[in-house]
């Protein structure tokens, strides 16, 4: 059994891990990145769409040089009832709205970037336990029995992280905090994907295709990823639905989808949990939880990759500060980590929007959700919904505090709303540099 000392050890090379490792190495820290898969992105991970509004953050520009499957410029939403199908088409910004990626390519590229920056990377290495001494986290133990020590451990091991669980920060979760998603990738070939899906993403709201979530179709280069599922509670299975696969079957059987996937073949299937609330605590002495391990996902929108990248970077910066100050206490880590986090307008505004919309969705029956979705589409998206709803309700009920809340939020997100053509310029520049 060997004992090596690092400045930071990062567990998991998904989204948050390589971002943290790259930043830590750039800051001159002796960095080790551990990943259980043979190729990063091949284990139980998912996610297709990178939000351009977030990538405009200078910390994330380099990600635009990664392997991109498709440049997404539009969004379509379908409301389907037994009587009729309504389709909304939205082009929310002047430029690119999302970049579609496949994780098995993107994570591998990102991990290589971390290695190039100077991080040591070990693949096919599973962390099975933590080293805890005097109430502080001092290192990790791998499946090969190695004990690896570091001043700060960064947990980037995703929703089921064994690090966060062993450290007592990740509890068991059910109900409206946890969503079980099933995905299938339908192979059509690049030509048919372009003809039938174009550079648009699609959301569907139809009976028996979901439980309190939004089924989607995200085109990649030669496949289209379909996803659906629902909250992990007792109502997930009822009315003839016995498995999330039944929701998926009903989704693929919708006439609008059936037509589009004709002649295609299921290339792969996946099953994932996604946690959608913030954890109470994200730090212990010597430990920071990032990405999905820390509950840094955007509830309701099912978006978490950019939150993972950013919190990974912030954790590395926090570790550097802590090591310099010779103070890796939970209090120090929490203070500086949260300072970076709350300073990011994108993260704050999306959290607000997501919390707001999740609340509406949980309290409404499907027909009302469809109506809300309709308003959202006409009004220009979930952000408008969050602003309009409080504004109108406040005006209706003569409650100025609601109007004020809407106004404050509107002003707060102005820097974010100006993202448009700028993102395309940065994207072009980054692709050219690549």
């Amino acid at each position, binding site marked *: 059994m060997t004992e090596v000392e690092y400045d930071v050890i990062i567990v998991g090379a998904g989204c948050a891990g390589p971002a943290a490792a790259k930043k830590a190495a750039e800051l001159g820290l002796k960095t080790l990145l551990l990943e*259980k*898969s*043979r190729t990063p*992105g*091949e*284990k*139980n*991970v*998912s*996610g*297709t769409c990178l939000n351009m509004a977030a990538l405009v953050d200078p910390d994330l520009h380099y990600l635009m040089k990664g392997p991109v499957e498709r440049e997404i410029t539009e969004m379509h939403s379908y409301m389907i009832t037994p009587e009729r199908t309504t389709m909304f088409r939205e082009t929310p910004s002047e430029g690119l709205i999302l970049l579609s*990626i*496949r*994780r*098995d390519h*993107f*994570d591998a590229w990102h991990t290589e970037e971390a290695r190039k920056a100077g991080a040591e990377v070990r*693949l*096919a*290495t*599973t*962390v*099975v336990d933590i080293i805890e001494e005097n109430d502080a986290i001092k290192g990790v133990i*791998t*499946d*090969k029995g190695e004990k690896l020590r570091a001043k700060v451990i960064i947990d980037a091991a995703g*929703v*089921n992280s*064994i690090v966060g669980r062993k450290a007592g920060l990740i509890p*068991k*979760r*059910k109900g409206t905090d*946890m969503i*079980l998603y*099933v995905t*299938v*990738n*339908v192979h059509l070939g690049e030509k048919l994907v372009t003809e039938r899906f174009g550079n648009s993403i699609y959301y569907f709201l139809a009976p028996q295709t979901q439980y309190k979530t939004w089924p989607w179709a995200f085109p*990649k280069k030669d*496949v289209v*990823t379909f996803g659906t599922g629902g909250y*992990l509670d007792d109502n*997930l*299975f009822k009315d003839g639905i016995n*498995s*999330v*696969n039944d929701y*998926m*079957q009903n989704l*693929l059987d919708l006439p609008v989808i059936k037509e589009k*996937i004709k002649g*295609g073949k*299921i*290339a*792969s*299937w*996946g*099953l*994932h*949990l996604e946690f959608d609330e913030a954890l109470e605590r994200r730090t212990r002495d010597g430990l920071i939880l990032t990405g999905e391990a820390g509950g840094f996902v955007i509830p309701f929108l099912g978006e978490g990759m950019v939150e993972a990248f950013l919190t990974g970077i912030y954790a590395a910066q926090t570790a550097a500060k802590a090591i310099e100050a010779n103070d890796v206490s939970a209090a120090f880590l929490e203070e500086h980590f949260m300072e970076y986090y709350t300073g990011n307008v994108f993260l704050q505004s999306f959290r607000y929007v997501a919390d707001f919309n999740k609340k509406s969705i949980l309290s409404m029956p499907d027909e009302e959700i469809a109506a809300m979705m309709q308003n959202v589409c006409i009004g220009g998206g979930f952000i408008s919904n969050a602003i309009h709803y409080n504004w109108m309700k406040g005006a209706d009920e003569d409650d100025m505090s609601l109007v004020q809340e809407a106004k404050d939020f509107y002003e707060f997100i102005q820097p974010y709303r100006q993202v448009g053509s700028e993102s395309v310029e940065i994207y072009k520049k980054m692709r050219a540099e690549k």
Partner: protein
Amino acid sequence: MKVEMKVDYYPGDPGEFVRVDESKCTGCGECAKFCTRNVWVQDGKIFRPKNLKACVECGACWNVCEFDAVIFEEPKGGTGVRFEYG
């Protein structure tokens, strides 16, 4: 198009990374209900992860067991489920 659970696995033995704590299992069956891969099977008064080969490491069973009877650990490095496309 019929939904088909097409998944790959790395070669190699992942180990017994999902287990039941026999002394805690009440036989409530929640693990089996929420396991899309039918890993959990009733065995007398309790449930066991008998078809562990089919596990995709989603973690649903661990999260839904209210009696702390599901032991959910990690497969050995470079083994277990392998996803394509993400």
